[in-house]
């Protein structure tokens, strides 16, 4: 008897809930059926490709991940429109136009390099008004001169100052007694920016350190010869070398430097993008940044999303990315999902692009690299931590002694200019 009543109760309650749910859905009823269209504008050919390897496949994987493990966005499966920007700013403008005006996507993830980001940001703000998540495009100019008061443009990835602070702290932590330092970077705007801000910030913490050599090697040349730079570098005998070479440059740099014995002769090497191309590119004891190979540090095993995400990449590409495009794309998708759900929870309405854009700011999510937040239109640099490379007995490379710089030291507060903020850094210490 009791059983029967309770059964009936359960049935009735379920029915009532379904009814309410259905009514509610009918009332707000605005979640459109069918897939939600998201655009990806990524370099899939041209020089930039070697720097964002297999970007198209990575975008596909990020979308598959959202559909498979997260149940899409507001229950709608994600349909990806993935186009090739060729790494060229003017083509990127065309591609954005195609995505937004032709395909009618609701949000765009895209732009790897600073130049493409700078070309696109003002147009998004003034004309297209669609939530746009820039992957990297780390130039400081983005939110200072290009779009000073952003509304739709967000960035996933650190800015130059943010990452330089982390790098300087990591170097000082691992080699407190350094006297001389040398820096090398690819010869394009980002390379110059990042070296300059490193030197500026280092001067705040340790004015006595001498920069003995800086060089900028050709960028993305695909089969470069760095012997001249390596020879010169080893002649100067610095205590620390910080290198920003990546992509094909990184592969060539690593091979040539290793053959010439750079890693043995310089006490501390910080190979920022020491990653895993297909082949072996890691060195024992070398510092590296987590942005590079995302499975090399513990979150891979701790059950963050990339415990499932990294195997997907490995399976499809055969190597973890030398640069964390896949990580950024997944992070971006998770942010978007959270923003849609936040708006829906608050208003009960299917969100407009403007609402999504507003909701993105201040969100916190569990991304592939742990908890990250969107502050001042900028994600707290997923994986912006520095660690030492170590090969475990099972052959897997991991990062040890991770150093994570607290956010208050990394974010330029809105009331300060970048230079003012850098000047305060020394005082925090």
């Amino acid at each position, binding site marked *: 008897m009791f059983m029967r009543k309770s059964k009936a109760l359960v049935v009735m309650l379920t029915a009532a809930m379904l009814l309410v749910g259905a009514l509610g859905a009918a009332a707000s009823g605005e979640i459109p059926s069918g897939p939600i269209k998201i655009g990806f504008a990524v370099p899939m050919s041209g020089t930039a490709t070697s720097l964002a390897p297999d970007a198209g496949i990575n975008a596909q994987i990020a979308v598959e991940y959202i559909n498979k493990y997260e149940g899409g966005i507001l229950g709608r499966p994600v349909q990806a429109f993935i186009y*090739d920007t060729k790494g060229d*700013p003017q083509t990127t403008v*065309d591609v954005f136009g*195609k995505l937004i005006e032709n395909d009618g996507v609701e949000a765009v993830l895209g732009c790897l390099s600073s*130049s493409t980001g*700078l*070309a696109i940001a*003002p147009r998004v703000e003034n004309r297209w008004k669609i939530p746009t998540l820039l992957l990297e495009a780390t130039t400081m100019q983005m939110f200072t001169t*290009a779009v000073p008061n952003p509304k739709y443009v967000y960035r996933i990835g650190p800015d130059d100052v943010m990452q330089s602070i982390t790098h300087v702290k990591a170097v000082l932590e691992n080699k407190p007694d350094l006297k001389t330092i040398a820096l090398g970077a690819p*010869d394009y705007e980002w390379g110059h920016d990042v070296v300059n801000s490193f030197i500026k910030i280092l001067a705040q913490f340790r004015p006595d350190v001498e920069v003995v050599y800086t060089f900028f090697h050709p960028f993305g040349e695909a089969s470069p010869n760095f012997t001249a730079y390596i020879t010169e570098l080893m002649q100067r005998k610095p205590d620390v070398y910080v290198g920003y070479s990546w992509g094909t440059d990184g592969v060539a740099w690593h091979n040539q430097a290793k053959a010439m014995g750079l890693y043995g002769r310089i006490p501390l090497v910080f190979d920022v993008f020491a990653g895993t191309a297909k082949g072996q590119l890691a060195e024992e004891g070398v510092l590296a940044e987590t942005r590079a190979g995302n499975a090399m540090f513990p979150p891979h095993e701790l059950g963050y999303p990339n415990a499932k995400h990294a195997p997907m990449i490995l399976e499809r590409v055969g190597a973890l990315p030398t640069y964390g495009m896949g990580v950024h794309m997944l992070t971006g998708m998770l942010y978007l999902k959270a923003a849609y759900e936040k708006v829906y929870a608050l208003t009960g309405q299917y969100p407009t692009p403007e609402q999504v854009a507003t909701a993105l700011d201040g969100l916190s999510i569990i991304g592939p690299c742990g908890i990250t937040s969107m502050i001042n239109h900028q994600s707290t640099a997923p994986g912006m931590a520095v660690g030492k490379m170590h090969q475990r007995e099972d052959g897997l490379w991991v990062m040890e002694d991770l150093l994570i710089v607290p956010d208050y030291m990394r974010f330029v507060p809105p009331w300060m200019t970048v230079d003012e903020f850098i000047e305060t850094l020394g005082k925090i210490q």
Partner: protein
Amino acid sequence: MGANTRTDRMLPSQFDDKLIAAIGLTLLAALIPFFVSEYVRTLIQRCLLWIPPIFGVYFIYSLLRQVHFAQSIFIGLGSYIVAFLAGKYFLTSELLILLPLSLLACVVVAYVLGIFIMRRTGFYFAIMGIAVTMVFWSLVYKMRQITGGSDGISDIKNPTLLGIQLSEQGFYYICLLISVGLIVLMYRILHSPFSMQLKAIRGDLQKAESIGIPVHQMRRLAFVVAGANAGLSGVLLAFLYNYVGPTSFAWEFGAQFVQAAIIGGVNYFVGPIVGAFAFVGLEFLVSTWFPNLWEIVIGVTVALVVVTVGEEGVTGIAKNLLGRVFKGANLKERTYSDGK
């Protein structure tokens, strides 16, 4: 008698056919913005702006049989003049100032470069063009304090005409006007004494010299004509994207115009126009359907066009097909017919 047969080709009926077709197409292009989305309009606008530099390539190819890879120098030059004057050091975005200014700059630079480049022929000419382009590119790329290096210059204001801010529609018509104007101009130039003598130079350099044609000067001027076309396009391209970067100077960019010219067909005056639309259209379709494969598709298409129809291009194929459909329709558009 000979003179009469020669002018036969300008008989009113035939002349009118071409004129009517040209006016019709121009009107179509003028009306299109009312029927298509903003994006398609931008796409057409890009095709229109590609036509003049392709005409430059066509001009050099059809009159001198040389492959002109250096168009991107002039595109870049025009674009950076706009970037500086209407962007970085904002002085003016007045088209009536910027267009003549960059035209002047291109003419001067093309003339000086022509002194060196136009002395070479064949593969040497092509490589020399690429080499000079790369020198320009690397200078722009490396002078980062002035040019913004690889980041380029992004805050270019919208163009004005006689002080009036142009709307996007208005700008479309400016592009159309300049593009059509340049096409008409090129038509005139290709039928002018100048072109006839260039063709003579191509046919036999020594004879041309010995009948008093200033060979080197005229070849240089041909280079200037091609460069000026590209320079004007560069100005408008900079305004179209509100952004200019060193990729405008990259030789790969210039090589695209050569590919487009080949696809269009270098035997026909309408070749460059067909080529621009075919190339941009093909790129659009391929990048929509198989975004990962556009290199294979474009590469194989150009290679196949060259192997199968050579200089006839898409225009030649279309002509053959149409000629079969409309028997007797006179689609002949060669600049110099064999006069039979």
